[in-house]
């Protein structure tokens, strides 16, 4: 579980996060949603520790991140997996080597065990063996996301962060990636936090949804509640597309 308490974050006097408190539960797909520029990426990067918050607590199972030294943060990060918006696969390594990399850095397994683990992770994300020795530039965007997920789960993380996992993907691949993240969250009992503004994703896998607007938490709930909220900012965001307007009308 990750508990965020009263965090504030500003850049050059510009307050980006204001008094945000939220609990991200283990074994659930927690989603941070909001319009572009609302502060959701800053919130996620602050939770991971890429940005230092001005005030507030970020507790990873009662370990407060802002109190930690860099060396302690590095140790904590070995329990963290992250799926980046652009996949962030290492260009100089092939698919298999990308997944083996964190194992080489932090596990004491033999080479054979590392390869076995990497094969398991790559097969778990439904990648075919023929693509294991290709360079990241030789595979599709959807496959790159799967490799990134495989790399993120290679060290059996307790926390998984996904920054806009569907950006640049077609609707079918997006759905597959969403389902994969959801399944992995349950299967390995991970605390998963997804940063998204894709309403299809939200409606598909959003179990604990946090809506951020102008750096503040405006609403928290699940995908079933989201249709019945009387909040203008949230409604503007959720029902921006005609499809969801129709869904709301049908539900009413």
């Amino acid at each position, binding site marked *: 579980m990750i508990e965020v308490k009263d965090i504030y974050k500003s850049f050059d006097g510009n307050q980006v996060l204001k008094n945000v408190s939220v609990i991200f539960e283990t074994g659930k797909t927690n989603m941070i949603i909001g319009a572009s520029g609302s502060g959701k990426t800053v919130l996620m990067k602050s939770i*991971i520790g*890429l940005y230092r918050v001005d005030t507030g607590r970020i507790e990873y199972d009662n370990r407060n991140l802002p109190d930690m030294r860099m060396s302690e943060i*590095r*140790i*904590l*990060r*070995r329990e*963290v*997996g*992250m799926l*980046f*918006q*652009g996949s*962030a*696969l*290492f*260009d100089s390594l092939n698919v298999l080597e990308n997944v083996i*990399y*964190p194992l*080489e*850095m*932090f596990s004491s397994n033999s080479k054979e065990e590392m390869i076995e683990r990497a094969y398991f992770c790559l097969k778990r994300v439904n990648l075919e063996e023929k693509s294991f020795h290709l360079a990241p530039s030789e595979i599709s965007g959807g496959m790159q996301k799967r490799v990134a997920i495989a790399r993120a789960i290679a*060290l059996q993380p307790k926390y998984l*962060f996904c920054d806009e996992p569907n950006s640049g993907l077609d609707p079918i691949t997006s759905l597959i990636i969403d389902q994969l993240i959801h399944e992995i969250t349950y299967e390995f009992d991970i605390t998963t936090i997804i940063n998204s503004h894709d309403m299809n994703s939200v409606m598909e896998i959003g179990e604990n949804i946090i809506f951020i607007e102008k750096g503040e938490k405006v609403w928290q709930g699940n995908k079933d509640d989201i249709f019945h909220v009387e909040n203008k900012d949230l409604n503007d965001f959720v029902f921006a597309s005609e499809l969801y307007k129709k869904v709301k009308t049908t539900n009413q």
Partner: protein
Amino acid sequence: MNIVSDTGKYFLLMKRVFVLPDRSYMFFRQFPKELEKLGLQSLPIVIIISVFIGAIMTIQTKLNTENPLLPTYSTGLVTRDTLLLEFSSTIMCLILAGKVGSNIASEIGTMRITEQIDALEIMGVNSANYLILPKIVAFVVMMPFLVIFSMAVGLIGGYCVGVFTDVITTADYLIGIQYAFIPFYVFYSIIKSLAFAFIISSVAAFYGYYAYGGALDVGKASTNAVVNGSILILFFNLLITNLMLN
């Protein structure tokens, strides 16, 4: 103020770079690749430039020292000392600042803007140490060899002038390049090149590591790395020369 804060950031980055690697075998796996990429792949340009500059320097020296009072071997002597003292260390390093500096800055800068460095950090890897240390060590190790190679090839270039033209005889040239040879000049040149190799690789890595934005910004980082690396080379050239030769 930018210079002060950038200098501070540079030293803080170097503090992160010069620590023991998380996994030493990862360093030793990366190290030979960098030797090959930064060192061996620079050999062609070192050869081409050195041979031509050696030849041109011989012709120009001969034309500018047409005086019956000067001994005939003086052309070879001047060519040798210019190559040893300045060309093969300083000028060659300025050229390599362009080739190697832009290579390092653009590689690390691209990794920064495509979030590969963030990915390393999230994994708990000291990205500065993992990415930059093998490059600096490899380039510093390779540089003396490149400098000595440049000296030798430059002298061969001068010799070719004697062979293929009638500007100078090969006998005069060979006497000149052996006359009053001071081995300390080679040592001085190597010491300079070690400092310059460190400047080129670390300054380029600094600009690449702190690149942000898009492809244009990586280009800017690359340009800054070459320009500022070259300025620092000239400054330290003056400093080291004053310390070692004055």
